[in-house]
């Protein structure tokens, strides 16, 4: 069962909230202090990507973040509700995998920055997180990430 689950409207201003919540829960779960910056950044990147996908595909549903404390690891799932289309992976408008972000995806139509951001988001996640999996299916896409935890000694 998820330790904390968060759903937020696909708006850029809520990504910061998701970062703060994820870092707070990760800290409690025993993720090393030195790694919390990475957790914060990776969650931010995943949520930014999901918000971009929702907005460029006109999806009204919220972005979902599932934070789970497990025995020896802390895992985060960031899910979007943009289904994979029959034409194959990467066909989702604005998905960086397609290399063709939808116009206006970054709030500036046809901007070269939009493309740079999109490709760099996943690059940053894969550079930061050792255990990461990106999947997309008919129900939408999910980025799964996890970090090891050090067991905390319970004081009497």
């Amino acid at each position, binding site marked *: 069962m998820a330790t904390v689950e968060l759903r937020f409207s696909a708006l*850029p*201003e809520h*990504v*910061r909230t998701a*970062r703060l919540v994820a870092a707070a829960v990760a800290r409690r779960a025993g993720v090393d202090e030195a790694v919390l*910056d990475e957790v*914060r*950044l990776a969650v*931010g*990147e995943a949520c*930014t990507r999901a*918000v*971009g996908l929702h907005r460029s595909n006109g999806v009204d549903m919220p972005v979902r973040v599932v934070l789970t404390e497990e025995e020896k690891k802390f895992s985060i799932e960031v899910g979007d509700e943009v289904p994979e289309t029959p034409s194959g992976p990467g066909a989702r408008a604005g998905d960086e995998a397609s290399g063709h972000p939808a116009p206006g995806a*970054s*709030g*500036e139509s046809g*901007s*070269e*920055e*939009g493309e*740079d*951001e999109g490709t*760099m*988001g996943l*690059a*940053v996640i894969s*550079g*930061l997180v050792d255990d990461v999996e990106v999947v997309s299916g008919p129900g939408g896409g999910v980025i799964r990430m996890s970090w090891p935890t050090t067991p905390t000694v319970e004081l009497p």
Partner: protein
Amino acid sequence: MDLSLSTRTVGDRTVVEVGGEIDVYTAPKLREQLVELVNDGSYHLVVDMEGVDFLDSTGLGVLVGGLKRVRAHEGSLRLVCNQERILKIFRITGLTKVFPIHTSVQEAVSATD
């Protein structure tokens, strides 16, 4: 925390002091600032990131966009950053090879290629 921006001129360089968090929500403000500076004829920019608490790929995208714009006018975009957590993001993405990164504003404004 929101993003704070202030600019000042040092010789032929324009120093943009950035503070706070640069993410998907605040990055458009930084983009507007850089675009405005280039449109106004400032082609040699120094972005001081010492007050930045958080930077993500959206922010990197804006900086790369700024670099493209100044280069179109044979200008330059230099960064000032000593924070390991921020430098790490530039290293992961290979952008340390793209941006000259300095340890102080003084060093950046006096640097030449």
